[in-house]
């Protein structure tokens, strides 16, 4: 009997795995009926029921209506057709580690990692698409993306003058702080905002060519990195204007930037997926980013905060840490260990979540577009 249970269990794994979405699990009750006879049959069904949660059709859940009704039809015809006393069980989701759900999770993680790895391997495609986006701004325009730089420069100058006066901050300290903050904030916010629509925007490619979807996320980040490279030009000019030297420690902002990009990649990945499904999310994200902009010390110096508020707005604000790891080295300040740890922890934790979500829903994305 036990062997029979073993055999059925094996098949059960296989089929549940293959048809997880399709829910043809009614097959199993049939299989039990085939393999066992008489009292053994009920025994066998019970053993399996105890080990894997089996639900009667009425309790069945988590599947689409279509397959549900099809299964039900099957079961009903079985009941009508034969005077079969075996209860017809269908399997929904089976628990414990050694089970299809775990395997599905495992499979989806493998799928997600494989997709991301292929996307990274096709860096030439990412590079080309990103360049093409930037180049499109250059075409038939005398200064191209430098328009963004110019407008940002003007904005930094204006805000610097006004807020410098309001806060009564010394220009030598405030202006470089503001410039670096604004440049990196615009990188972060456009990455997140464009990340939201990266899959929606690539709909025509996604529906035509089997290119790993992560390519489109990387493309957004790469494009914005190129634009950042334009904007960063402002920073040395500001330093020159206020006569502030740039130390060697500024090089630390390179690993800081890598960590920031790593964080933005997982945020964009999750958001792009959610936004493909729920189309009004980008608007919400835009408002949230606006609030985050005011809460994070970009326009105001953190030293101006009174003690208690500082704990809330600085230490508990993950965006502050993300900005800090790239901005502080450029201003000749030390990056606190807390900032490095928060940014690193966020990257690690965020990527784990992102990989799981991406693996689970990757298959559905093309259907949502």
């Amino acid at each position, binding site marked *: 009997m036990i062997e029979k249970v073993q055999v059925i269990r094996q098949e059960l794994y296989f089929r549940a795995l*293959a*048809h997880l*979405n*399709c829910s*043809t699990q009614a097959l199993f009750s049939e299989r039990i009926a085939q393999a066992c006879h008489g009292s053994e049959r009920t025994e066998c069904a019970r053993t399996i029921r105890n080990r894997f949660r089996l639900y009667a059709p009425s309790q069945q859940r988590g599947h*689409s*209506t*279509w*397959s549900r009704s099809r299964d039900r039809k099957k079961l009903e015809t079985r009941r009508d057709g034969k005077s079969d006393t075996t209860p017809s069980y269908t399997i929904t989701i089976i628990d414990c580690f050694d089970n299809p759900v775990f395997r599905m999770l495992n499979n989806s993680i493998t799928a997600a990692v494989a997709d991301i790895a292929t996307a990274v391997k096709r860096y*030439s*495609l990412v590079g*080309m698409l990103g360049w*093409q986006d930037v*180049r*499109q701004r250059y*075409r*038939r325009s005398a200064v191209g993306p430098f328009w963004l730089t110019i407008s940002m420069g003007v904005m930094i100058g204006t805000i610097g003058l006004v807020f410098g006066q309001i806060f009564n901050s010394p220009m030598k300290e405030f202006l470089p702080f503001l410039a670096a903050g604004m440049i990196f904030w615009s990188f972060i916010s456009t990455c997140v905002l464009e990340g939201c629509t990266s899959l929606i925007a690539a709909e*025509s*490619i*996604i*529906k*035509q*060519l*089997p*290119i790993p979807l992560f390519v489109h996320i990387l493309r957004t980040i790469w494009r914005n990195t190129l634009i950042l490279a334009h904007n960063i030009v402002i920073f040395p000019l500001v330093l020159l204007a206020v006569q502030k030297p740039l130390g060697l420690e500024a090089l630390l902002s390179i690993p800081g930037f890598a960590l920031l990009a790593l964080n933005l990649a997982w945020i964009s990945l999750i958001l792009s997926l959610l936004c493909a*499904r*729920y*189309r*009004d*999310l980008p608007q*919400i994200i835009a408002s949230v980013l606006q609030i985050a902009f005011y809460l994070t010390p970009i326009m105001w110096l953190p030293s101006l905060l009174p003690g208690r508020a500082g704990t809330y707005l600085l230490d508990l604000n993950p965006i502050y840490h993300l900005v800090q790891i790239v901005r502080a080295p450029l201003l000749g300040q030390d990056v606190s260990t807390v900032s490095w740890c928060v940014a690193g922890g966020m990257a690690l934790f965020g990527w784990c979540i992102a990989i799981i979500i991406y693996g689970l829903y*990757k*298959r*559905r994305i*093309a*259907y*949502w577009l």
Partner: protein
Amino acid sequence: MASINVALLIGSKKKTIMASIEFHNACVDFPIYNASARSLKKRLIQVATGGKLSANDQGRVIVRALEDLTFSLNDGDRVGLLGHNGAGKSTLLRLLSGVYAPSAGTASISGEVASLIDISLGIDPEASGRENIFMRGILLGMTKNDIAEKLEEIIEFSELGDFIDMPVRTYSSGMHLRLAFAVSTTIRPEILIMDEWLSVGDEGFKHKAEARMNELVEATSILVIASHSRDLVMHTCNRVIWLEHGRIKMDADPETVTRAYFGN
């Protein structure tokens, strides 16, 4: 069939890897999200009120585009897909190219797939022809070196001459297609997916294009082509699948199926 196989052995360098496609009860369901069901608000309210908005599956309409497709394709198969508009041909092509994953059942595809459904995809009208060759090529999975190697050949084939360094927006639609065609047919995939036979240009060019297409098809292991043309199916394919309402109505040799589909 035999002649095609011989041609395959000579023409393809990737013969070591066998391409195959295996479908088992594959279904494709499209969830139709109307504007309101797609919003997060509605979803949240739905959760908050604790019930489904309507009895039939969260008020979601599902369109079943393909239903229970079971078939397998192997090396040397040249498959024609026949069916009326809306029978699911394009959806099946997308499923074959790996764009869609089946919403139920399994579809395993082994081999490098290329889909030439829309050859103009990825062409930037503001970029020059030369830049576009690279863009389109990389999009199709070629490497920069591959393209650089074949660049001259592509330019020569497209007969664009000096126009190759002009922005594509200055091209006529015929020239545009020639360029797209010339790049798209340089790939040598194991599995080739096409929607109708690619045919571009004026009379003279058509013959060249025809020869090039044949060369491409001979180099691939599996060809799947959706078509409405009887002649094409009879000439190119050695197997025809007739789809109707998302199901396989007939899967046999071209002779039998075309007779049933087109009538005599």
